């Protein structure tokens, strides 16, 4: 299933659905107060059971990322993007930086080399702006 293959066996599909929608909000593909697909549209498009899709959407409503308008559908909450960015920033160090440092230690790369690389990149970023 090509569209089905979007999801892997690593975790429950409903959590992967929630994650996908969060990513779309973060990247700006889904804007605040924009309507999201219905669970049935989502289920048909990704070839998954509608109950699974609904569970993913409920997760997002519980988290306040989406809100429901009776009889109309589900929409992106006005502060969703900012809240997601805040959450992801907190996870960034634990999930990206710490594993990178652990890998560097395994490979015997001195911490100084890593810091130097980051500073080089930071310099390029400054040049670009």
């Amino acid at each position, binding site marked *: 299933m090509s569209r*089905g293959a979007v999801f892997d066996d690593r975790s429950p599909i409903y959590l992967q659905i929630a994650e996908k929608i969060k990513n779309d909000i973060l990247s700006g593909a889904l804007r605040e107060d924009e309507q999201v697909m219905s669970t049935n549209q989502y*289920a*048909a498009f*990704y*070839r*998954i059971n509608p109950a699974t899709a609904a569970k993913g959407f409920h997760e997002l409503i519980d988290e306040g990322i989406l809100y429901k308008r009776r009889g109309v559908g589900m929409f992106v909450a006005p502060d969703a993007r900012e809240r997601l960015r805040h959450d992801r920033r907190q996870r960034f160090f634990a999930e990206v930086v710490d594993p990178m440092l652990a890998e560097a230690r395994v490979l015997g790369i001195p911490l100084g080399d890593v810091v130097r690389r980051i500073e080089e990149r930071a310099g390029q970023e400054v040049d670009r702006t």
Partner: protein
Amino acid sequence: MRIEVRDLSVRFGRNVAVDGPSFTLDGDKVYGLLGRNGAGKTTLLSVLAAFRRANAGTVRVDGEDPFEHPTLTRDICFVRDRVDAEDTDRVRRVLQRARDLRPYWDDAYAAKLTELFHLATDRKISALSRGMKSALAITVGLATRAPLTLFDEPFLGLDAPSRRVFYDELLADYLAHPRTVVLSTHLIDEIAPLFEEVIIIDRGRLMLHEETDALRSRGATVTGPAEAVDRFVGDMVVLSERRLGPTKSVTVMGSLGPEWRLAAQGLDLEIGPVGLQDLFVHLTREERP
């Protein structure tokens, strides 16, 4: 339709095909019935479909025994990989008969399906390939729109593109007309995302009945230095283990959450997922360690 199975037993001579399972399906969902060849899937479905009577135990469909129940059986459709028809019957005749018998039959939908499957309605049954026989059975099964539809490995003869058509149509038509669907298969990975719940039977017994998504996180593999793996796994239920030199990989039953993952990182152990198909293979193996 709500299905209640209690201590069901079906014997063929000395051979016990269905050996006492009890379970309840609330209905209006798509259920996957998984089991190896000879596990008793077909026999179980035939009892639900009122095609045969159990030796012991009970089956209730919406509270009633379906066997020889004139109104209830009209609402139950049993689909295999071929239709029950004479070799000399034409496809058109098979569809007409279904229309005469079935209260929820949708002619336009049947026509759409025959087109999607490239099924020639003027062909005789004897002239159909195995795949076309499957396609006809599936067309009848879907267009019947029975409140309880039982598919018994209906797509064995279908090639991959036609299976895709079947999955898409099953999902779309279920969304438009919610009903109870039980589908048996051992091609799990392909169709598992469509199942809301999964029932696994093994040697006639109920092994597991669970939400598919919950099952997805039920197993894990732990890989790393043998001694560390053994200590980490402790008294978890081990489904299988493999060794390569000093490295050991163990498949365990149980969801290993973030705290386990963190602990594993510190021990140089890797935790991986177990797909539904793998989990099924491990659970239904002849012998376990």
